[in-house]
């Protein structure tokens, strides 16, 4: 298996230099056009979901909206704030943008066996491939985080610093879950090269074989790209704009561009690792043999990426933003253990199947053990809860015995649960008041509502 992988990778790195440039320009243009399209598409779809029309002024059907936005941002003033660390401040958007594009170098747009010819030279439909292709994608994603943390730090302002830190913590937390979900794929494909991973999905896509990994990856990719419902770094209500608050003009556009290119990249990775890459979806391949040959794979790949991007937009149109503590809890306490246990389960099943063990009995033993552990944890939980409840009740009783002081420490304080406010001194009802006659000139005993001063 490993030797065949090395053999197939020998198809890469043989292009003449002009073809490398052509393919690199194609990759760049593909990423750029997908981004330009998906910005308009996102605004359109979110508008429809909110019963609006969306952009429709620039070009036919508003399709040139993102181009117009880019030109507008080009013509805006490039403000460098006074407190900024100038060099890092200018470098940060560039650092964020470059690795976003670089990840596309190892994405397979089509089969790796010299299917197409460009100006008479046959070449694989992929810029290049490495034995550690997916690791390279993870590395570029990590370098992209530097852009964000440097932007937040170098702005010399409070909100960007907090936004940048938040972004960083969020992205690195979800990178772990993302990396763990990849490991299960490598277990099946015997390779980290993207072309090999697609090649090994000939019979069955990994989304069917490894559904849990796919779900973990989908959650992690939304967290990794700072998209709704995980768009906490730009939570306007608390952080203004997040790490890019102090940025204007094209530098701001660079961050937006990097975000969208990252979206396209993670969609491409999801397609490559789990959704069969450039392979045609199932019903098509049954009646059309040519679906996976020639230039057609590019179409299937693009369609899959667009569906994934639509999923991103759909999430944004549907879900409210999460709270930061819930978000970190999901990442650290749910996704990591789940993907770890899933990986070990997949590995165990595969190892046992390789060694031809009696599968049913082992599954029974393992299932029984898991059940016992779950039951034990439930019992422990119940007892722990009981102890805590008793302690809580005692504390409450203790608090009830003390009279509530509404002006503790000189400040008015609200009552805690279980405490009651002392009665508010109120005016008594009119009937109970004892009225005193005012001795006016006529002395007929008219009243002006003044009370006797016994309770004042």
């Amino acid at each position, binding site marked *: 298996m490993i030797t065949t992988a090395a053999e197939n990778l020998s198809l890469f790195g043989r292009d003449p230099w002009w073809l490398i440039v052509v393919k690199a320009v194609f990759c760049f243009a593909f990423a750029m056009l997908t981004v330009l399209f998906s910005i308009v598409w996102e605004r359109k779809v979110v508008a429809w979901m909110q019963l609006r029309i969306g952009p429709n002024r620039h070009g036919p059907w508003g399709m040139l909206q993102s181009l117009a936005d880019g030109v507008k941002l080009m013509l805006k003033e490039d*403000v460098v704030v006074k407190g900024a660390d100038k060099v890092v401040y*200018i470098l940060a958007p560039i650092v964020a943008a470059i690795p976003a*594009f670089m990840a596309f170098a190892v994405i397979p747009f089509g089969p790796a066996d010299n299917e197409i010819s460009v100006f008479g030279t046959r070449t694989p439909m992929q810029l290049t491939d490495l034995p550690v292709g997916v690791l390279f994608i993870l590395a570029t994603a990590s370098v992209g985080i530097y852009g964000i943390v440097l932007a937040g730090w170098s*702005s010399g302002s409070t909100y960007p610093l907090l936004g940048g830190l938040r972004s960083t913590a969020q992205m690195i937390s979800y990178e772990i879950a993302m990396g763990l979900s990849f490991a299960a794929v490598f277990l099946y494909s015997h390779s980290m090269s993207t072309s090999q991973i697609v090649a090994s999905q000939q019979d069955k896509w990994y989304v069917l074989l490894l559904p849990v990994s796919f779900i973990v990856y989908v959650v992690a990719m939304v967290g990794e790209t700072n998209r709704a419902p995980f768009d906490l770094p730009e939570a306007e209500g608390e952080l203004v704009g997040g790490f890019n608050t102090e940025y204007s*003009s094209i530098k701001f556009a660079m961050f937006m561009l990097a975000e969208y290119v990252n979206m396209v990249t993670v969609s491409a990775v999801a397609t490559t690792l789990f959704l069969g890459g450039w392979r045609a979806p199932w019903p098509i391949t049954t009646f059309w043999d040519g679906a996976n040959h020639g230039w057609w794979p590019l179409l299937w790949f693009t369609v899959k990426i667009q569906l994934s991007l639509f999923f991103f937009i759909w999430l944004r149109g549907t879900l409210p933003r999460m709270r930061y503590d819930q978000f*970190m809890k999901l990442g*650290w306490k749910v996704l990591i253990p789940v993907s770890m246990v899933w990986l070990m389960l997949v590995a165990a099943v595969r190892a046992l199947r390789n060694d031809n063990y009696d599968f049913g009995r082992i599954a029974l033993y393992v299932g029984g053990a898991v059940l016992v552990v779950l039951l034990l944890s439930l019992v422990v939980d119940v007892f722990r809860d009981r102890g805590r409840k008793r302690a809580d009740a005692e504390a409450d009783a203790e608090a009830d015995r003390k009279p509530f002081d509404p002006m503790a420490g000189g400040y008015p304080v609200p009552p805690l649960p279980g405490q009651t406010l002392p009665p508010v001194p109120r005016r008594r009802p009119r009937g109970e008041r004892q009225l005193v006659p005012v001795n006016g000139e006529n002395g007929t005993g008219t009243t002006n509502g003044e009370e006797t001063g016994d309770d004042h």
Partner: protein
Amino acid sequence: MNAYAPILVLGGLGAGFAIFSVITASLTGPKRYNRAKLEAYECGIEPTPQPAGGGRFPIKYYLTAMLFIVFDIEIVFLYPWAVSFDALGLFGLVEMLLFVLTVFVAYAYVWRRGGLEWD
């Protein structure tokens, strides 16, 4: 080595685009001086003075970064193991289970001590 050259070409394209845009925008945009515009933005109030180097921020972020390193290295160990899993057989599985258990002792400790809590 030749397989790595296209990555540099694509990176060069990206870098060229980014640097070109940043330089062009600094030439095409207007320049109107305004003292208030150059202040840090804090919703219109006078900006808080920033200590040199960005000042202090919550220690939780350091903790997250350290935990990230622990798990990231674990993942880096997992990848070659996963790639050559079939060659290693049952022995590889048991070894990796032991390793993961060791890491998860630390994970359970951090969880129990509240290292994963955010407020």
